């Protein structure tokens, strides 16, 4: 029925118990740092309300804010391009590279370019795109996708990274000291920065009022790239806008604290216009965003500022790994964004949740993630074949619960059956519950039966 379910991939991940718990602890540590840092801000919940309201405003005025952003950027001398989908986005980048006779490209972290498959597209055209974020460079060497949007190589241990670096940049075999490996990466990347003619970056916040934008990094790699190269291409999802520069403070205070527990990213770099003799391009990308905006129940998923806090807090993500979602953006937010792009392919993601609600409460822009997971489930069972047996069992359960006589009878039958069936049958391979859990002890009577005898 399906090529890839989240449950299958998760079960595979969990087979390595030690690694699963290492992954869980690592991300829980990040969540704990976030808690500590948020606790230091008495007005934390007010900030979340403010950020949420600002993003609601943006989504309800997106057209006019985009036009305002474009005209201000144009006035700054920036070339603004529009892309309706990933293909147009990639073609724009390629054309810019061709027109400017670019040979060497450095790119800082951008989940949008992952979403658009830019690296593969450019590699097929003969370009070598060097990812300059340390985590991104590691997984680029390993030919892997990011498993987390903020911590792309979080699934790898330092020993894994030592091996990858030994193979690709000649570090000592068996060396896994983070300081040593990072220094080796710095030296390797330094050469790439110096040679680059073009730097590609993402955008964290586009400011409609000024036409400028902000890129947040911890490593300063976006700055190093854009300062050295003559061409800067900034790739921006259309939902990344905020109305005014004055709104920025709210978001910068929330972003890093939510992401890693830092009070602010090491570099929050503001770009307005190209330096003399250089060129700055902004590509505004839709790629399914306006479609999502039209879905009343799901539009506010577009408020996301990509902090990754919902991944760090999600007890399922921590124990199943980013790859189990098979989606550019994994975890809870990915599970409400992805079904809008391909309902069938991502149909198991909204079910990869207990609806515990931790994601919604940790979200700095207050996206009701778990409520949207619930709503996607309703959409999916209507539109995707979930298997006849599941549908039938739900229909039968629905009918049984609708009739007290049927319910009382079914309950009695189930209790009787459990009592008199041999354990070998109760715990057969058909009983998924019983693989690792005992069933409840069967009482001699239901509460209702007791009540009729004792209270009525």
């Amino acid at each position, binding site marked *: 029925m399906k090529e890839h379910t*989240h*449950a299958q991939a*998760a*079960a595979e991940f*969990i087979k390595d118990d030690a690694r699963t*718990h290492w992954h869980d602890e690592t991300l*829980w540590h990040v969540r704990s740092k976030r*808690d500590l840092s948020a606790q230091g*801000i*008495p007005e*934390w*919940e007010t900030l979340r309300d403010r950020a949420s309201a600002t993003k609601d405003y943006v989504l309800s005025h997106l057209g006019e804010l985009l036009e305002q952003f474009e005209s201000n950027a144009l006035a700054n001398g920036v070339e603004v391009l529009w892309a309706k989908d990933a293909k147009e986005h990639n073609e724009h980048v390629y054309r810019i590279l061709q027109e400017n006779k670019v040979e060497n490209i450095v790119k800082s972290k951008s989940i949008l370019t992952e979403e658009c498959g830019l690296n593969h597209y450019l590699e097929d055209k003969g370009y070598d795109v060097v990812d300059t974020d340390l985590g991104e460079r590691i997984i680029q060497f390993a030919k892997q996708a990011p498993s987390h949007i903020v911590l792309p190589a979080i699934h790898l241990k330092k020993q894994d990274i030592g091996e990858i670096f030994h193979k690709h940049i000649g570090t000592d075999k068996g060396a896994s000291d983070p300081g040593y490996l990072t220094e080796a990466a710095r030296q390797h990347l330094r050469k790439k920065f110096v040679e680059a003619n073009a730097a590609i970056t993402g955008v964290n916040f586009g400011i409609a009022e000024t036409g400028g934008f902000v890129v947040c990094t911890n490593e300063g790699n976006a700055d190093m790239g854009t300062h050295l190269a003559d061409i800067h291409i900034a790739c921006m999802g259309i939902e990344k806008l905020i109305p005014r520069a004055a709104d920025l403070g709210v978001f910068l205070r929330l972003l890093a604290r939510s992401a890693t527990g830092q009070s602010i990213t090491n570099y929050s770099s503001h770009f307005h216009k190209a330096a003399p003799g250089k060129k700055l391009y902004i590509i505004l990308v839709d790629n399914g965003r306006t479609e999502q905006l039209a879905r009343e129940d799901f539009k506010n998923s577009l408020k996301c500022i990509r902090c990754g806090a919902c991944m760090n*807090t999600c*007890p*399922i993500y921590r*124990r*199943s790994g980013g790859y189990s979602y098979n989606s550019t953006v994994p975890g809870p937010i990915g599970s409400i964004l992805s079904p809008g792009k391909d309902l069938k392919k991502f149909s198991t993601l*909204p*079910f*990869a*949740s*207990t*609806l*515990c*609600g931790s994601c919604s*409460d940790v979200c700095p822009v207050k996206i009701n993630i778990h409520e949207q997971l*619930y709503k996607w*489930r*309703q959409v*999916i*069972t209507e539109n995707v074949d*979930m298997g006849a047996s599941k*549908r039938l069992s739900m*229909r039968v*359960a*629905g*009918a049984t*619960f*609708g*009739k*007290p006589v049927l*319910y009382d009878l079914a309950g009695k039958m*189930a*209790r009787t059956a459990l009592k008199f069936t041999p354990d070998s049958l109760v715990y057969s391979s058909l009983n*998924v*519950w019983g*693989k*690792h*859990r*005992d069933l*409840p*002890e069967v*009482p001699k009577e*239901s*509460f*209702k039966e*007791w*009540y*009729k005898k004792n*209270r009525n």
Partner: protein
Amino acid sequence: MRVGLFIPCYVDQFYPKAAQATLELLEKYNVKVEYPLGQTCCGQPMANSGYERFGKASSDLFLKNFGHFDYIVAPSGSCTLHVKDHVLPKEAPSPKIYELCEFLTDVLKVEHVEASFPYKVGFHSSCHGLRGLRIAKCSERMDPEFNKPLSLLNKVQNIQMVELDRKDECCGFGGTFAIAEEAVSVTMGNDRLADHQRQGVEVLTGADMSCLMHLEGLIKRQKSPIKVMHIAEILNGNPV
């Protein structure tokens, strides 16, 4: 005030003692509780599985049984949340539904609990009560601290409540999630259990029997000595 007792289906069938304790506890506080005999299930299992539409009959039946009460009380945060969000009409007049602990603290304003429980007790904070009904402050939010079920347990004599390393992480039950995502569900449950075991818990309690059923299943399979009781049983003074 007319108070209707809603006993969720699996509590009725598998945990009648928790239901009896709930009834007796409310009676101790002089609440005249009515238990409509025609009740079944609130429809949550179907709805959370994506089949809200098949739960219509049980929703209609729920309203038929409970529509005329001032208050509905249920010993389950999860079922209470489902009824509140998806079954009861949003506009007045509609009965108000309360999870047992919040009914005791907010409506009855209980000051004293007549019970002694000389054990080390771990409290499992079930998600739907916590983040859905807000019966306590969750660790994600930065509001002032409050915890309705714990405030009640702390009124029990001789009880020793333990601090958990992760005070409100999900146990992995999640209804049909427990089956559909068995591997993750069991890992989450065992991790929660290990936290209680590290703190030397003798009795694990909570306000949602469904999470407790999942944890108890793991406890029994591990042959761990930890006992599981619904919070109503402890507040009602039931023995272990």
